[in-house]
């Protein structure tokens, strides 16, 4: 994927096609789920919610691909942003339950009554308004990504160091959210949602609409990402990925370039997380587990790193495989997942997209002698 050799000619036709496919598939599935059950084309609610989940995961994969495939930052903590977006959405959905909880308290979510809370913590303020909650979905992960990225990229934390501290970040968040004292429901997280914007979450219509919304958001994210990585900024990103020091010597600011794409990708992940929660019906600290972040990296690797469409493809296929094999080979599917990691890294350095559109050359790796040589003079 020697993209630098063709500056300016970097369009991602796959991304546009994938965006179209995603929207069409979402609409078709949603429409088919509205058919009566006797109709041979009827699609069950199970399939619809699965599809919605896969597409939400695809947004996470897309966000990982943006930073890993294009800026060379291997993140092992992107699920943190996904989960934070999910929590923001979860807070809104929790408040929507209102007095229909098991204790019938109109102000406090069930888990707070459970733990004898007397009033809502301040950070729950306004979460009963959909617009405010949606703002939180975007702002909180973006702010965290901003602070973290600013600190990390400014001081040129890179490579493995960065990977490890992103992992530490999501691990710390996981431990934090496990604490019941934090006011997010501890281990159980937020669950038992009833409706969204007044629409019952458990009806086929709401499900169908959510699936379409997820499809459209994913398509939008794909298109915006394509715009971001396709132009001049995209060239700069790849330059930073392949030869950060040279780029810096040419007068660019790699830290700012990285920060921008980092925050943008965190926001995509967060939106994915928010949509995910509406469709799986639960958000809990397990979503912060480092293993989830690592898994999202493998989706990208399977699909094809550095190709936007590949991320989506990888996320959907791997998760589809997981759904099938956890049901059909419950005791052995983990071998399959492990093997997938091995086979992909050993034999498919460019992922499935690489198979489909064979590359002339293997992807350049971020560790090049040039980069290494400059490390000596860093303080």
């Amino acid at each position, binding site marked *: 994927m020697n993209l630098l050799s063709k500056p300016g000619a970097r369009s991602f036709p796959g991304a546009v096609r994938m965006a179209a496919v995603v929207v069409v598939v979402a609409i078709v599935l949603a429409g088919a789920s509205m058919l009566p059950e006797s109709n041979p084309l009827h699609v069950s609610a199970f399939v619809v919610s699965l599809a919605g989940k896969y597409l939400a995961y695809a947004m996470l994969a897309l966000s990982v691909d943006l930073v890993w495939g294009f800026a060379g930052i291997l993140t092992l903590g992107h699920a943190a942003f996904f989960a934070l977006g999910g929590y923001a959405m979860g807070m809104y959905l929790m408040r929507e339950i209102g007095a229909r909880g098991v204790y019938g308290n109109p102000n406090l979510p069930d888990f707070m009554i459970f733990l004898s809370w007397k009033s809502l913590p301040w950070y729950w303020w306004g979460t009963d308004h959909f617009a405010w909650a949606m703002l939180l979905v975007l702002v909180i992960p973006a702010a965290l990504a901003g602070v973290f990225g600013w600190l990390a990229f400014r001081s040129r934390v890179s490579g493995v160091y960065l990977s490890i501290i992103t992992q530490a970040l999501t691990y710390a968040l996981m431990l934090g959210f496990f604490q019941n004292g934090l006011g997010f429901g501890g281990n159980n997280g937020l669950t038992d949602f009833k409706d969204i914007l007044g629409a019952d979450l458990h009806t086929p219509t709401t499900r169908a609409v959510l699936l379409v919304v997820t499809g459209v958001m994913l398509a939008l994210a794909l298109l915006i990402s394509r715009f971001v990585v396709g132009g001049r900024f995209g060239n700069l990103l790849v330059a930073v990925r392949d030869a950060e020091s040279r780029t810096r010597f040419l007068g660019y600011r790699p830290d700012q370039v990285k920060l921008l794409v980092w925050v943008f990708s965190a926001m995509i992940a967060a939106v994915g997380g928010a949509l995910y929660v509406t469709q799986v019906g639960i958000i809990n600290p397990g979503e912060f587990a480092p293993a989830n972040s*690592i898994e999202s990296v493998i989706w990208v690797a399977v699909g094809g790193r550095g190709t936007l469409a590949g991320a989506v493809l990888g996320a959907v296929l791997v998760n589809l495989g997981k759904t099938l094999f956890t049901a059909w080979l419950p005791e052995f599917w983990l071998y399959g997942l492990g093997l997938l990691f091995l086979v992909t890294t050993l034999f498919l350095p460019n992922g499935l997209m690489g198979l489909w559109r064979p590359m002339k050359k293997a992807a350049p790796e971020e560790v090049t002698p040039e980069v290494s040589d400059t490390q000596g003079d860093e303080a």
Partner: protein
Amino acid sequence: MRKAGWLSGVMAALVMGAAIVFSPLAHADEFDALASGHFEDMAGAIATLAASGNPQAVPVLHALEEHQLFASSQGGLFIRQGENYVDARTGQPVSATPPDLHPMRLNNRVRKALAGAQAEMELVAPQRDVRLKAATALYGRHDPALLPAIDHALSVEKDSGVRVKLEEARAATILGQAPVEGAQSQRLEAVHTLAGVGGLEARGILASVAAASVEAPDVRKAASEGVSAIDWHLRMWSVFQNAFYGLSYGSVLLLAATGLAITFGVMGVINMAHGEMMMIGAYTTWMVQQGIRATAPMLEPVSILLAIPVAFLVCGTIGVVIERGLIRFLYGRPLETLLATWGLSLILQQAVRSIFGPTNLAVETPLWLSGSFALGGMDITLNRLAIFIFAGLVLGGLMLVLRRTPLGLQMRAVTQNRRMAALMGIRTPRVDALAFGLGAGLAGLAGVAVSQIDNVSPNLGQSYIIDSFMVVVFGGVGNLWGTLAAAMALGMGGKILEPTIGAVSAKIAILVLVILYIQRHPRGMFPVRGRGVES
């Protein structure tokens, strides 16, 4: 089985323990009471039996403790000796095995009575160390019923060491009694004795004396002074105690991280299956223990020592195989190795789950590694101490290997400049394989150590992998001293924070601090400088 209220008076009498025990169910004798299986009656009977001087007391109580005492449904009491039974009352062998025997069960109440009774009987034993042990045990019991026995022992005891312990036990026992008229000076003296002894046990007794309203004012005052003196003492020692906790936690982290420091630091390979190597080391320990139990039971106490080389070799071999079969295709692509080894770790976990089952395995801790000893006001637990020493030995050994052996020299050469090393005739693939094997072997050693303090389950590795990476990154990749410093810093930091903010928050705080530190010092505490350092 809470008895009616009227019983509590009777029970109080029982605890206050004159020689005569009122048994609520009116048993014919103490053997009858023992055979009844009522824990309350059994506890009383044990005390009576111990005080009675009956020659059968020692064998009966011993049999009870060893689960060799049986009762028949007719109320007979028998001691099992191998295949045969003897009548507990008479000590005479019985000709035929009595029908429907059931073993006498114990509960904590009976166990406690038993321990007290045995200590009481052993107070006058001929061997000094038996008496010393008994006197020390009685100190922790402070059971007023034992006072006559202690007084008797004091009157005949010649050994000064045992006398000190007896005096302490007597003081504790006296204060355990309700205050009676005219005993004020005796109690005051006891308070002073205990204040001098110090420690948690004494603090507990003194605290209850200080809080008792029936106590004379000057006794209470002396007791509360004693409490605050002990508290001050304890606080001072708690600093050292915390330091020990920190060091021992740090040495676990160090053991877990040294292997990683080799594979990650020296070779630049991010081995996410490192934790699984530890797990395999722990499972190897279990297998060695089982194997020895089956073949050479007399070696069982040292099976853990035998497991050390075995685990090193097993994990080292697996490491070499992984390097040759997988890692070598991925050199120069550190992030790909991360994903591949992650996949490998999933496979290894599930494989262990398939072979050994998903549940924990019991790795036994040998006696010489159990328990603790007091050092000043500190409690030093033996297994933690052993791990501390073991970590030091492993680190020292590793240093020696790196500095004093040809392999170490070659490894360092490859680290510093792979191409140059290859040009100098070093077979870098061989060095890579051996270095990876060494790293995996070290993880195996960590697994042996961890099997003594943690679960041996397929999930074992997962709980250490993140911490190990933090240690290596925090210390500075490629620098063993950095790894040592980082492990100890993280261990101590966690243990200093834990008592004040709790275990969870301490862990989060440490993670956040490390993240911030890495932002300031992107290459850790001890960065390796020079050319050819991989990012």
